[in-house]
């Protein structure tokens, strides 16, 4: 895939000497502006906000519970640490279009040491627990890495901790820095994957599926565990063969023995996201899929079709990869029972994923 190169980089004056800012200044050949106070970047939309990169401190807490842990849904007790906001890629279904509508500037935070201190305090306070912590909620975990070199700070930090696992979630193939680092068994590099037709039509600027899987193979060779997220599953004409082919491609690219987990989640759209999809110029599979509004106000693929999709994926994944840990993201106990033949507690699910156990 083509590496992301912003039109311009803005750096807060007081952050120029931070590792992230220094790395960007070394690696970026385009115009760099230094600013005082608030960043003078005023993108009018999330899409507009992707063109320029801001480097500044993050004020407030970094670590929080994954917002997918909504009441009434089975939750995997995942924590997210937001070291960037917005993403250079442009997926049709991306919730950031709605979530970041009021603060859409693509931003990498420079006070990474504060984030690491926060994580350190939490994992030290609970030595009996194992934490799964991801950086891929408000941005792609690796898309900015060729500029920021952030993984060089994160991987050694987690490699040195026995009760915390870092998940780097991406749609890129930007793994070169990772290959020079030792993850110590504490880092999972995971890919958001989809049927090739969805990748092509709905995931602008991302690496093709084959490139993602080639990168997965490389990091596995480099000692990392890998993960995959079929999320969002999108129904389209030919979805059965499309997703079967994606599963087969994964099985052909990686060793199941070090697959940490695979999640399945169906397309879900808030009312704001439904509007954002309607405003996009290019038609997408996400716009066309058969979603209906649910009791929580979010639109999802209607239940019977969703169950059919999950069953096919679980069956194909089990056949191709054996007993790798599988879980559903943001699904109800009822759907879990139908698809997985069990309803784990949130705690049990989190523990099993942290332990890499299957069921």
């Amino acid at each position: 895939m083509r590496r992301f190169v912003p039109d311009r980089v803005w750096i807060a004056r007081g952050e120029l000497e931070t590792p992230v800012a220094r790395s960007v200044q070394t690696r970026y050949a385009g115009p760099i502006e230094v600013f005082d106070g608030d960043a003078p970047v005023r993108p009018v939309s999330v899409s507009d906000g992707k063109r320029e990169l801001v480097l500044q401190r993050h004020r407030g807490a970094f670590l929080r519970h994954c917002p997918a842990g909504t009441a009434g849904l089975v939750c995997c007790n995942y924590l997210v640490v937001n070291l960037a906001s917005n993403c250079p890629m442009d997926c049709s279904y991306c919730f950031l279009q709605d979530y970041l509508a009021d603060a859409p500037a693509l931003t990498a935070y420079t006070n990474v040491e504060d984030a690491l201190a926060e994580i350190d305090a939490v994992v030290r306070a609970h030595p009996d627990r194992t934490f799964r912590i991801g950086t891929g909620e408000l941005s792609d975990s690796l898309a900015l890495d060729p500029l920021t070199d952030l993984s060089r700070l994160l991987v050694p930090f987690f490699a040195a901790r026995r009760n915390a696992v870092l998940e780097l979630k991406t749609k890129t193939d930007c793994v070169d820095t990772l290959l020079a680092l030792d993850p110590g068994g504490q880092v999972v590099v995971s890919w958001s994957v989809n049927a090739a037709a969805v990748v092509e039509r709905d995931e602008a600027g991302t690496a093709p599926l084959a490139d993602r899987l080639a990168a997965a193979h490389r990091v596995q060779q480099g000692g990392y565990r890998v993960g995959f997220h079929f999320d969002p599953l999108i129904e389209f004409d030919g979805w059965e063969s499309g997703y079967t082919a994606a599963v087969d491609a994964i099985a052909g690219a990686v060793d199941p023995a070090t697959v940490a987990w695979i999640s399945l989640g169906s397309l879900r759209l808030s009312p704001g996201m439904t509007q954002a999809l309607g405003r996009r110029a290019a038609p997408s599979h996400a716009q066309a899929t058969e979603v209906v509004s649910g009791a929580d106000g979010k639109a999802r693929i209607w239940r019977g079709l969703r169950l059919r999709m999950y069953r096919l994926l679980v069956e194909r994944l089990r056949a191709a990869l054996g007993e790798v840990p599988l879980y559903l993201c943001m699904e109800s106990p009822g759907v879990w029972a139908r698809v997985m033949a069990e309803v784990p507690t949130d705690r049990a699910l989190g523990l099993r994923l942290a332990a890499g156990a299957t069921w």
Partner: protein
Amino acid sequence: MSEAAVRAYAVEKHFGSATLSRWLAYPPADRDALLELAVQLRLGENQLRDVLDDVGAIVARRGGGVTGLLSDEAVRGAVARSPGRNPAIRALKQALRRLRYPQLSNAEQRLAELGRALRLPAGVRVELPENLDGDAIALTLRGRTAGELRAQARAAAACLQGEALDEMFAVLEGLR
């Protein structure tokens, strides 16, 4: 017709700027086809917004343009055959829903057939989750006396012994 005609219609119906912008974003031929439909059915803003949502999703699925979709017999015919504005708007919504949700519509149709196959007594109704987004099927029994209600329940219970009920749950669970 023209952009001016679309704007005039939007002003007349007090449309918000977001709806108007969405409408004007279509190519001229599609814009005009929507205007023709809006004028014919005197569509209000919410109704037009629903139509825009549906046609956007259908065109994204099938390809082609809005003009072709609105001249499709399934849409045009449903509107033309309906007597009066309100029935025509309902028919339009139903026709668009069938095109937007082909698998859901097929499942709903199959469930309706199976519901009829149960041969429930008069007064007993099958209730399905809205948009089939649930796992429960309910029966409503209505009696004006204890004896009438007991009789309804016995008759309904007998009707539920056949395979049609199992098949209904299978459809609801996505197994058919």
